[in-house]
């Protein structure tokens, strides 16, 4: 089992690198996961993370990335990775997207 360690507390990740217990997420966890992804979080990243988390809280699904882009005006590929959807969800402490997406 993979995990990240914060203040000597182990937080479990599943085999695809997503949080096992979504409730364990906090900003420190986001920082730690993003480092594993090779990303250093900046203010811009946080705008995206906050947007995605708020949307998820409201609808229980990830927003369409086009909407994230339009609402934030930020370059998701540049900020996150070639697969920004997975990367954002992972760092935001949300589950891996499902279905034909």
């Amino acid at each position: 089992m993979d995990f990240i360690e914060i203040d000597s507390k182990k937080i479990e990740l599943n085999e695809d690198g997503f949080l096992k217990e979504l409730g364990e997420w906090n900003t420190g966890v986001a920082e730690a996961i993003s480092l594993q992804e090779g990303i250093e979080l900046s203010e811009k990243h946080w705008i995206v993370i906050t947007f995605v988390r708020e949307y998820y809280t409201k609808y229980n699904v990830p927003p369409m990335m086009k909407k994230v882009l339009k609402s934030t005006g930020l370059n998701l590929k540049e900020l996150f990775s070639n697969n920004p959807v997975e990367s954002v969800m992972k760092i935001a402490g949300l589950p891996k997207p499902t279905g034909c997406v």
Partner: protein
Amino acid sequence: MSKQLDLQLKDIDKKTDRLVEIDSLMPLSAPYDKEGMEPDFVKVKDAWKEKYCTSLDGIIGVDTLVRPSTPEEDKFVHKFINGLAKLFADSNKNFLQPLTLTMEYCVKCNTCSEACHIYKSTNQNELYRPIFRSEVLRKIYKKYFTRGGKLLGKFVGADIDINWETIARLGELAYRCNLCRRCAQTCPLGLDNGMLTREIRKIFSQELGIAPTFLHSKGSVRQLETGSSTGITKAALLDNLEFMEEDIEEKTGRKIKIPIDKKSADILLTHNTGEFMAWPENPAAFAILFEEAGLNWTLSSSMMGYDNVNYGIWYDDNMAQKIALQQFQAAKELGVRRIVIGECGHAHKAAAISADRMTYGENKVPVESCLPILWELVRTKRLTFNPAKNNFPVTLHDPCNVVRQMGIVQPQRNIIKTICPGFREMTPHGVDNYCCGGGSGFAIMQSLNFADFRNKVSTRVKFDQILRAFGDDVGNRDIVKYVCAPCSNCKGAIRDMLAYYQATDKFNIHYGGLVELMVNALSTIDKPYLTFTDELMP
């Protein structure tokens, strides 16, 4: 571990870390004919070996097929054998006859092997020969259910040990086939190794409760709970539609109100809900075209009325039936005359073919494909086009479910030939097409290292076809190239393939659906609909 050409059937029970290595891959066409143009396989982690069945080819497709404790192994084997017996009972009504014929009449002529894109892409790896898994199943069947097998064992081919490893390997092997049924189409005896593969998946799901998470618990089950395998609920759907309406206005200047839950409409259009999240320009394009043509149509926002997917047809008859019947019910309640399936291949087959006799009469709503309807709008000039707007090379990927399983071949071609002067066919195409490599759930199985198998093996022949279709234009970065794939799953597989091989970044190869191309060429809209800029960049 065997070299891939040395593997023999009786090795299936062999005590080894890995039965076979994928040690050879079909060379790709230019410009991918040089070393270092593709990443290597991800290394199998030790923790994975302990937990999953990595002893087939090192790939994990079935993330719920986990190693039980020793006492549980016998129970597992027993349940599997029990499930195998049920496949040959009357209750397996739709499949009993083709299954029995396939089991009994194969003469091992290997015509099917030549037809299989997975066998081809691995330079004839024995493991992926379509009849390899069928032969393993035959051996197990013989051993348990024939007098000869029980008495004479290895003299009649019932010569393998049946234990967890053997059966788990067969379970994994059932997820190395896209169920595209190109092998069945070519079999001189009409036998169907694709269907037989699905029967194996059925034993695992229906008897052992084992199916890939993204197909079952986060697929079919999620769809029945929330309305969609994506988890999109009514509220999220309405939010997405509102966003799409704004986007349509920005792009085309048109104010369109997408009709929702319109009672007694002629057409209930259903989409793969993945479109709303990943490719919203596709359902938006449908709305633009249907409105322009003045069709009496609607979307549904009711539970099971908006997501047309039915993953059950890939692995589980009961799930397939549950989903299909509820989808009919949603259409029935709305009082529409017919259901029209948008650009989703497996939904075409699920609703129009698989579900055709699941219910009848009052409970049934006629199902049609969007493609002949779209062609009719083009042919009768209810939609008019300026083909010069699609002035770039276009090739067409045929979704297996649309061509081979349903025989819808010409409408999509007629449309493209009318609106795309730079159209060129892939070779082969139509009913002889090759699968995109994402079929039967592969496009959405994103766990562990399965994406490696998809990107390097199952999509390989399709990627090569794309390269060959564009020929010399591939190397010219200034020329935009468009792979038209009118199916959500195919698009998912092609998107991942183009990203894996960096074909968009390096060679300007793009992909998308058919209706987007149509809107792009509409003579009544000035601005281009396709921009070919990265949709995730501002």
